């Protein structure tokens, strides 16, 4: 990966394993038979890893960012209307324009539109709970949705997931792929949740959206800001003409 090697494209910085949850986390029972026993094999990045579907998908995707009405029933979802917006950045703080952001969530009562969700809370016929949008030139995305509820799960006695929205991002490369969850500030369930708790304490706040009164719209919706940081490019600039030389 030196600048004199035209066949080794500019790579991305390594996964920040200090900030990431371990694959084996005792508090989260589903990890026990699903985490690999063997350590991951290091793979020096190639064209296969510095490319990825993100740019192509961004070009193919129509924004569908209003979850309060995108059930298409002509009526609005029930719940506390919220705006969730923020920027997608890399580790240098560089905004990531034209990148796909997908979200999904349960409804205000804590129920997903999914066959496997058997929580006896009501479904909302006017809420599906999925949305997508592509960031603008400043790397900003914006969703209108309703605040998701907490819901029980069977990980341990009286287990409840704190309210959260699932986020899926591709970024520019295969290695910038990220699926995470956005949590809401001030939730007493945070301390009790082994999924959030799988992340080292000092990094958990990066998953918690901030209430932002400048985003809140008067007599309409509360505002939350949630920035997402993806893996950034290696610091060494690539000098030898880049893409064309791979042909």
């Amino acid at each position, binding site marked *: 990966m030196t600048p004199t090697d035209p066949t080794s494209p500019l790579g991305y910085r390594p996964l920040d394993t200090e900030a990431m949850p371990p694959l084996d986390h005792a508090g989260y029972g589903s990890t026990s038979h699903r985490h690999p026993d063997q350590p991951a094999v290091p793979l020096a990045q190639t064209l296969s890893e510095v490319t990825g579907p993100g740019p192509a998908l961004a070009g193919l995707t129509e924004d569908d960012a209003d979850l309060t009405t995108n059930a298409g029933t002509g009526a609005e979802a029930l719940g506390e209307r919220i705006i969730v917006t923020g920027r997608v950045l890399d580790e240098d703080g560089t905004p990531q324009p034209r990148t796909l952001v997908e979200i999904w969530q349960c409804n205000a009562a804590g129920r997903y539109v999914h066959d496997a969700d058997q929580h006896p809370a009501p479904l909302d016929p006017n809420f599906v709970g999925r949305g997508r949008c592509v960031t603008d030139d400043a790397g900003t995305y914006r969703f209108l949705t309703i605040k998701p509820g907490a819901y029980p799960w069977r990980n341990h006695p009286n287990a409840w997931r704190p309210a959260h929205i699932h986020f899926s991002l591709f970024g520019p490369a*295969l290695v910038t792929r990220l699926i995470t969850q956005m949590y809401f500030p001030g939730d007493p369930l945070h301390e009790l949740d082994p999924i959030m708790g799988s992340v080292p*304490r000092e990094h958990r706040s990066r998953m918690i959206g901030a209430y932002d009164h400048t985003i809140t719209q008067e007599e309409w919706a509360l505002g939350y800001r949630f920035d997402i940081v993806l893996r950034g490019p290696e610091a060494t600039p690539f000098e030898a003409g880049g893409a064309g030389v791979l042909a």
Partner: protein
Amino acid sequence: MSGSRPVPDTWSQTPSQTPSQTPSQTVGPFFHYALTETPGDDLDPDRHAGRPVVIRGRVLDGQGAPVGDAMLEVWQADGGGRYRHPADGRAPDVPDGFVGFGRIATEASSGRFEVHTAMPGTVPGRDGGVQAPHLNVHVFARGLLRHLHTRIYFEDGPGNDQDPVLASVPAERRATLLARRDATTSDASASDAAASDAAASDAAATDVAATDVDAVAYRFDLVLQGAGETVFFEA
């Protein structure tokens, strides 16, 4: 979990924080309606990006139980070894309509999956080298707090012996990355099934069924843990 708490969990992120990678969290069990309806398990519906192949397999956990709520993402080059991406100068030559990306949910009861696609070509490697044909695969599931990254090579693919990534894997584990020619599932029976589906749908599907008669079938099981554990990479 007790002891000192320098940063209370209830604090949110702040604009002044130094950018640092957002932690990963599990995809959970309820992603399907948001993620896997498109683009689905057929990466080359027009059958023009390369030799048609179908890969069938299962995702299994450390007890040999099927993982029925996994999602696989496939990223691959076309038959000419070109990626549809700005970092590949040959991207304009990728056939129209072929992105090289697929997302597949495993079947709930069996953990089975199918990928219908084009056989990728050899791909440029580091230091002027060449990589044998492969699919890049991400695995997401409930219980995976981070996604897993692996590759699917083909047992009869050209250049496996010289592939630097395969060579970096301990020899005794290399076979976990090889899709095997599938003699047990006949292509004819698979296309029959596709044809009956197609009869109930539309003409486009009929075309797909017809061309799938020629698809070369492979088998690839993904084992998350334990005996025969698939090799996973950190890139």
